[in-house]
C-alpha cells in the first residue's frame, strides 16, 4: 500500500521543501486558506471520522468544534512529547516527513482561527526541534507561514518548545503548564482546554500523527480518507512494533489490520524461534493480552482498531505494540512498567504517588522471589484502590498491566511466591 503519513518511504527526499512541493506539498494549505471557510474544514474533518492518535481516539473534528468563538485568541498545541514506552512513530514523521506535519499544524490553526501554534517536543528530541525550526524558517521564506498567507489576511506562526524529560508532560493539561513555565502537573477539569487552555485561552491539543493526516483529508475529502480503515476507525495508523519480533519498527497500515498481519507478515514473527506469550498493544499502559494455544487464533485475527482490541481485553491506545515471548514472565514485566510509572508520577495526587511507591516495593519483592501469596493479593488491591482516583490518567495507566498480569498469568506469580 502507498503511505499517507510515511510518504518518505515512497519519496525518500520528501524532507526537502522543493521535493515536497513537487509532490503536491502545501496544496492543501493553499486550498484551505484561499478557498475554504474554517468551518468547512472542521466539518470535513468531522466527516472523515479522524480520531486522535495520541491514545484516546477522540474524534478530532468534534474536539475542534468545542472552541467558543466568543473568546480569543485561540491556540493550537501539538503534542510531540511521545514518551509512552514502546511508542516511536511521531519521531519518524517529524524526522522524515516534516513538511507534511507542519502543513497539518498550519491547517489546524486555520480551521480553529488560531494565528499561533506551539509544538511541544520531549527534550530528548532536541535535534528534531532544531530541524523543525529550520523547516519553519523555510516555510516562512516561501510564504507558507507568517502574515498574509497566499495574499489573504490570514497569519499563522508555528513555534517549537522543548520539554525536559517528564512523561507526564504528554498529558495535555500538564503540557500546557509546562509551556507556561511551570512544573508539568495536570490541571483540574473542567474547565477543559478547549475553553481555558494555553495562557487561559481556548486551545486545541492534538498529536503529531493526528495533524499529519490533515493535508490528505483537505486534499481528498472525507470520502477519500475513508477508503482506508473501518467505518468507526477510518484511515491508516502507524503501529510501533517492538520487543521480541524479528523486524521491529514502524508500520503504517489501515486501522483494522490484524495482529497476525502486523506481527507475522510485517514483523517477521517472534525472534529466536520462541513463541508468542503476551502482547501490550498500547505500550506500558496496556492491559496485557494473554496469548496461548487456546487464545492464539482469536487474538491473531483481531482487527487492531479502536473497537475490536477491547474484545481481547485491552485497548489500542497509541498502537505501540510490545511483543513478549515465552522466555519472559509477567512478574518481570510489571516490575519494569512500575519502575517507569513510579519514576514518572508527578506527585500531585496521593493515590498515584504513594500507590506507585508501594507497587514498586511489591513488584520488586515478588520478582526477586521474596514475596508471599499475600503480597500478590496486596499488590492487586493497591492497584484496585488507585484506579479512578487521580486528576489525570497516569494513575490508572500504571495499574492496567499489574492487574491484568495477576489475573491472566496466575502461574507466573504462583511460581514466584514462597510457600
Amino acid at each position, binding site marked *: 500500500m502507498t503511505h499517507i503519513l510515511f510518504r518518505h518511504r515512497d519519496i525518500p527526499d520528501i524532507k526537502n521543501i522543493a521535493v515536497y512541493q513537487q509532490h503536491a506539498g502545501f496544496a492543501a494549505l493553499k486550498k484551505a486558506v484561499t478557498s475554504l471557510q474554517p468551518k468547512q474544514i472542521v466539518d470535513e474533518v468531522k466527516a472523515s471520522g479522524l480520531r486522535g492518535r495520541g491514545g484516546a481516539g477522540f474524534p478530532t473534528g468534534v474536539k475542534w468544534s468545542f472552541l467558543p468563538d466568543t473568546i480569543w485568541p485561540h491556540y493550537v498545541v501539538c503534542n510531540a512529547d511521545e*514518551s509512552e*514506552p514502546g511508542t516511536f512513530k511521531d519521531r519518524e514523521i517529524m524526522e522524515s516527513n516534516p513538511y507534511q506535519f507542519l502543513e497539518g499544524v498550519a491547517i489546524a490553526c486555520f480551521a480553529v482561527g488560531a494565528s499561533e501554534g506551539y509544538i511541544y517536543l520531549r527534550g530528548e528530541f532536541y535535534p528534531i526541534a532544531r530541524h523543525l525550526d529550520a523547516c519553519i524558517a523555510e516555510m516562512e521564506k516561501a510564504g507558507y507561514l507568517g502574515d498574509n498567507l497566499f495574499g489573504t489576511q490570514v497569519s499563522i506562526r508555528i513555534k517549537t*518548545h522543548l520539554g525536559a524529560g517528564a512523561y507526564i508532560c504528554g498529558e495535555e493539561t500538564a503540557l500546557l503548564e509546562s509551556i507556561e513555565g511551570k*512544573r508539568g502537573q495536570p490541571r483540574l477539569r473542567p474547565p477543559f482546554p478547549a475553553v481555558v487552555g494555553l495562557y487561559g485561552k481556548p486551545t486545541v491539543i492534538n498529536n503529531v500523527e493526528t495533524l499529519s493526516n490533515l493535508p490528505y483529508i483537505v486534499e481528498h475529502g472525507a470520502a477519500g480518507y475513508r477508503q482506508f480503515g473501518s467505518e468507526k476507525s477510518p484511515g491508516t495508523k502507524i503501529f510501533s512494533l517492538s520487543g521480541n519480533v524479528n523486524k521491529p519498527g514502524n508500520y503504517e497500515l489501515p486501522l483494522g489490520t490484524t495482529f497476525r498481519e502486523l506481527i507475522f507478515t510485517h514483523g517477521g514473527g517472534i525472534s529466536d524461534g520462541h513463541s508468542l506469550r503476551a502482547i501490550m498493544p498500547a505500550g*506500558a499502559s496496556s492491559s496485557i493480552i494473554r496469548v496461548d494455544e487456546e487464545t492464539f487464533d482469536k487474538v491473531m485475527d483481531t482487527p487492531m482498531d479502536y473497537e475490536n482490541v477491547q474484545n481481547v481485553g485491552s485497548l489500542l491506545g497509541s498502537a505501540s505494540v510490545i511483543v513478549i515471548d515465552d522466555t519472559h514472565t509477567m512478574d518481570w514485566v510489571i516490575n519494569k512498567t512500575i519502575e517507569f510509572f513510579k519514576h*514518572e508520577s508527578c506527585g500531585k495526587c496521593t493515590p498515584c504517588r504513594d500507590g506507585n511507591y508501594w507497587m514498586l516495593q511489591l513488584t520488586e519483592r515478588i520478582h526477586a522471589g521474596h514475596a508471599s501469596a499475600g503480597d500478590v493479593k496486596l499488590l492487586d488491591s493497591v492497584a484496585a484502590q488507585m484506579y479512578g482516583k487521580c486528576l489525570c490518567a497516569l494513575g490508572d495507566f500504571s495499574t492496567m498491566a499489574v492487574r491484568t498480569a495477576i489475573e491472566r498469568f496466575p502461574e507466573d506469580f504462583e511460581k514466584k511466591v514462597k510457600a
Partner: protein
Amino acid sequence: MSSVDNIPNLLRDKYPEEVQAIFAKYPIKRSAVMPLLYLAQREAGYITKESMAEIATLLELDTTEVAAIVGFYSMYHDEKAGKYRIQVCTDISCALRGADKFLEHLCQNIGIKVGETTPDGLVTIEEVKCLAGCDKAPMFQLQDGDQVSYHENMTVDKTMELVEALKKANLEVKE
C-alpha cells in the same frame, strides 16, 4: 549594595541574542524558563545556583521556584557530573532486547557503576526510561549540556569507540 547587584549577568552578557529570541517566542515571560535553563546548562554542563538566580531575576520569580522546575524535569541537572552523560534506556521494549545486559557490560568495560563518572571527568553513565528508540535497542542518548544525540543499535564495542573519540576530541580542544 542592593541584592540585585549580586546577580550575575552571565547569560545576558554571553548570549544576548539568544536570550532575546527566547523572550520573543512567548507572550508571557515565565514561559522562557525552560529554554533559559537549557542555555544555562550549555554554559556550565549543569545548572549552577548563580544561573538559577539570574533566571529568577530575569523572569521576576523566586529562585526557589526556578529550583523547583529544575528538580521536576529529569534532563536538568543541578550537580556537576561528566562532560557527557551516556543515558542508556532499560525500559520495557529495550529490556526485551537485552538492554540490561548491554548496560552491565558497558559499565564493566568503562570501569564505573551506573550513576558514576570516569576519573577524567569525561563520562557519566545513567539509566533512563523510554527514549522513543525502542525498535533500535540497545540504544542510549548522549547528553552534553543542552545538546542531545541518539545512538541506536549499539554494541559495547561501538560505544567504547565513541568514548575514545570523545576523549580525543576533548584533548584536542584543551591543547
